[in-house]
């Protein structure tokens, strides 16, 4: 996805959008329980970040980009791998926690890069 250490709002947005859609689909297929609640919590974080990026896009100039570019490059390159893992979350809480931990890192990378919460 990202070829260098720069990340545009559209790239960050696209990555989060893909993640949201993967997780939303997985959420609908996961029975009630701790794994479902964990996915729900991540979806809330992604929603907040996507709304902030959309608002920033409407204003086009309000996002404070910090210098965390290098931290974002690898997670973005491995987005497809992360989406595959999301599909295999299942109901095992240990496996889910591991995969969702990677999702957390990804969300945190994008949001800190753009300075959005």
């Amino acid at each position, binding site marked *: 996805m990202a070829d260098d250490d720069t990340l545009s709002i559209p790239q960050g947005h*696209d990555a989060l959008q893909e993640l949201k859609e993967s997780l*939303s689909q997985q*959420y609908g297929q996961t029975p009630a329980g701790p794994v479902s609640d964990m996915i729900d919590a991540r979806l*809330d974080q992604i929603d907040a970040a996507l709304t902030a990026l*959309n608002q920033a896009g*409407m204003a086009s*100039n309000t996002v404070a980009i910090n210098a965390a570019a290098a931290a974002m490059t690898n997670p973005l390159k491995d987005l497809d791998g992360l989406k595959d893992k999301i599909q295999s979350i299942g109901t095992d809480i240990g496996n889910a926690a591991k995969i969702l931990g990677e999702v957390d890192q990804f969300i945190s990378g994008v949001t800190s890069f753009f300075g959005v919460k």
Partner: protein
Amino acid sequence: MARGTTICVAGLGMALLVAGCSVSPLVKNASKFATEATAAAKDATSAYQLVEQEHYNAEVERLVTDFGTAKFDLNSIQPFMQSDEMEARTKLIKGLSAYAETLAVVAGDQPLTDFDTQAEAVGKSLKELSTSDALASMVKKAKIDATSLNAVTTAIDALGRAIINHKRSSELPALLKEAKTPIATICALLQADIGDPEKNGLRNQLKNDYLTEIEKQEKFIKNTPTLSPTDRQAAIRAVATLAKAARDGDKTLAATQKELADLAKTNAALAETDKSKDSPAFKTMLSELVSDGQQLRGFYEKLPTK
């Protein structure tokens, strides 16, 4: 019938005929276009209202499912559009409406007393907008080809002046000519705001807010095992209804984008018709614009009014 009455009726008939013939094709076309332009400006306003309403609904659904947890926060409900950003859009849309009204007034030779004050206010507001940060950010986002910020601000300012200055039907060609670029610019900025369902703008926000509502409804169903079979069935149906509303909402926003594009094209074609009696290109575009508007009316009229 008495002879005097016959003469009167014949005279009135002749007068109407002469009056009918004296209305130029440009004036007639401008009058028809003005009606559609007014409607398109209203639809553009409704597009923002639709997204704002659905954003509110999604935030409320989140609040409902967060009730009783540490995440519950009444202050979390915030509008999607920041007030200064929305104000810039409102001024642009008012510019479109005022232009349409100016056309209607000029083409109809209507009394100008009240209209003068209103047109002047809109003209001034466009002038102020032309130097605002919000407009600069809209231009940057819209990535309008070969159009610098300077050209856009000049165009917005020019529309304000054209609305204030041209009041007589003889000035219609000049008004159309001066407004051609500004109207195209405003339509392009608003279309860019509506955006793309996967990428940005109002369409993406609407899609995501509906996805949130769907997810929160699913959460309610999963976490409420005590639902009766009938209530459970109704709750699952609500998920399907939300999915359909999301598709309909996106189609409506896409149709609003098309209406704005057609508005700019039809306005440009109208400016080109000038004194020509037949203007097939304009007529075809006007009919497309009418059709765009008819599709949208049904949807936007169902939106709750604030």
